[in-house]
């Protein structure tokens, strides 16, 4: 994947400037991204949350499974920063354990879906003809049934496997819309001179896709991968909330919230504090992703296919 170079932009009408001045463009994209305040907020919050998830448990006074017999169902305070559940387990420690899994799931599934979208979309757009029509039809087919329903239907199978299977399946059912966007971009890229030149020189199609198409849609892919992290976390937590995602002994924020939603009305801290952690994590990724989008893509937002 060394050829993926986040330096060129899809929106450059002038191919030469993008190709000849990669260092400047890279600098420009980052500078433009981080000139937005929300990019800083997103990046810093995300870094802090990740650090917190993985270092926090070492510094916490309680672990996730021990019962504190002196504090059954206690509200936040008194050493239990997020309160305790009915049997005295520390919610703060449990939240961090769930957060770790949620972050890992998001960081794998989001970029993986983007990878699939990039290659499938580029292949469809580059080859055109029958290949394109078949791929577009498959995409439309996968969009007919919402991914959540498909994953619920096949949950009896992947429930018995490890959580890695779930992560891969989330990616496998989340790439479709982005693939259509990449396809659209590729269709215009393949008419550009540098791609034509490569083609007439006899460069193999997949080499062209790897060297010329993917780097030129890299900006789109970066946006999608960033936003995909948050989307995957939400997808997983929804599945887990209804019992179709992460299975015990693994814990994610979704399965943690599922356990405490019944008590949410009477002891809100059980639900609200882990939920706020989840929202903050996803919000940070989407702020960062959106800032990338604004910096890279002036036509941002609209789904033009």
């Amino acid at each position, binding site marked *: 994947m060394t050829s993926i170079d986040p330096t060129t932009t899809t929106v450059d009408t002038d191919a030469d400037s993008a190709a000849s001045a990669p260092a400047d463009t890279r600098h420009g994209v980052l500078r433009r991204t981080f000139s937005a305040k929300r990019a800083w907020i997103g990046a810093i919050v995300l870094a802090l949350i990740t650090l917190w998830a993985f270092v926090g448990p070492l510094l916490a006074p309680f672990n996730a499974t021990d019962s504190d017999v002196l504090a059954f169902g206690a509200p936040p305070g008194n050493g239990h920063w997020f309160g305790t559940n009915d049997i005295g387990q520390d919610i703060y420690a449990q939240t961090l354990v769930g957060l770790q899994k949620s972050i890992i799931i998001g960081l794998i599934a989001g970029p993986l879906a983007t990878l699939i979208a990039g290659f499938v979309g580029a292949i469809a757009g580059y080859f055109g003809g029958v290949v394109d029509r078949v791929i577009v039809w498959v995409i439309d087919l996968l969009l007919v*049934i919402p991914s959540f329903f498909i994953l619920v239907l096949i*949950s009896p199978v992947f429930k018995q496997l490890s959580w890695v299977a779930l992560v891969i399946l989330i990616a496998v059912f989340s790439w479709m819309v982005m693939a259509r966007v990449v396809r659209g971009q590729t269709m215009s890229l393949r008419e550009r001179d540098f791609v034509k030149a490569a083609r007439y020189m006899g460069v193999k199609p997949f080499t062209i896709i790897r060297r010329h198409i993917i780097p030129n849609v890299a900006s789109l892919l970066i946006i999608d991968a960033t936003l995909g992290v948050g989307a995957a976390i939400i997808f997983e937590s929804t599945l887990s*909330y*209804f019992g179709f995602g992460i299975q015990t002994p693994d814990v994610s924020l979704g399965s943690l919230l599922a356990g405490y*939603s019944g008590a949410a*009305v009477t002891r809100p801290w059980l639900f609200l504090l882990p939920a706020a952690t989840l*929202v903050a994590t996803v919000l940070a990724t989407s702020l960062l992703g*959106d800032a990338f989008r604004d910096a890279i893509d002036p036509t941002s*937002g609209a789904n033009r296919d």
Partner: protein
Amino acid sequence: MAGFLLKRLLNYIALTSVATVLGYLLISATLNPEARFLGRNPPVPQAAIDTALNRLGANPDVPLLVRLGNWVTHLVTTGSLGVSTRGTEVTADIFARSGTSLRLLIIGTVLGAVIGVLIGVWGAVRQYRASDQVTTYASFVVFATPTFVIAVVLMILATGLNGAAGTQLINFTGEYTPGLQGGFFTQLGDRLIHLLLPTITLTLIAVASYSRYQRSAMLDVMSADYIRTARSKGRTRGTAMFRHGVRVALIPMSTFFAYSFGLVLTGASVTELAFSWHGMGEYLIQSIGNNDINAGAGTILFTAILVLISGTLADFLYAALDPRVRV
């Protein structure tokens, strides 16, 4: 225009059929109806199991493609989706439950689309002003919140409100209060109150996504030449925006509407489940729990038909808005 719509409709019908068939195969592969009979005490005789499975059309000794063929033939000739594991007709079950789901789905989608488009246009026209910033960040927060969290937070707030009022102002469990005595208006009022929180949940999600897309579509349009032309003809900024701008900005929205429908559908099922409504979302989840192939496949068909309808509606909208399609 009729040709365009017909072509799209045929494509949708083909997609729906293939999706349903694949769905049936997928469910048959993952669910195991026989599991319901195994491990019971006293053991169920094999002959009884076979009879029951044959009645469901789910006997694993019959090749999968033959079962699929029977199911499809049965569906096409009699319009029946087979029998559920509880012995009821799946078609009847779906008719009974779809009203619950559709009511929530239609109200949420319509409210979400209308409010979303209005907020989007407003945000674009007042770009970077305080109101735009507020709606932008609010939609980010909604995007970042899973549907079930919105539902539970609303429940907590409603409980707080009920506690503060000292009486049960807002009921939110189920679709209506079971065993409620009273006339038509009491019943209607009861249902409307139960509808309140689920509708807010679903509308929030829809508004958040529609308003973002409408805002960016509108921003693209606002700098277009024809807006300037309309202004130079003497139109005011307001009418130029609305008569020429919003209409054009709605064209990409119609495509987005079709794409996002799956998301809204998922949101609606999650909302239903969170508020313990007996709709199609619950039916799907029960079908997994009961190893019920016919019920699961029926749900898939139902979903696919909804997507077909929404896609066709989006095409109509597209054709109505975009004069280029009409030639």
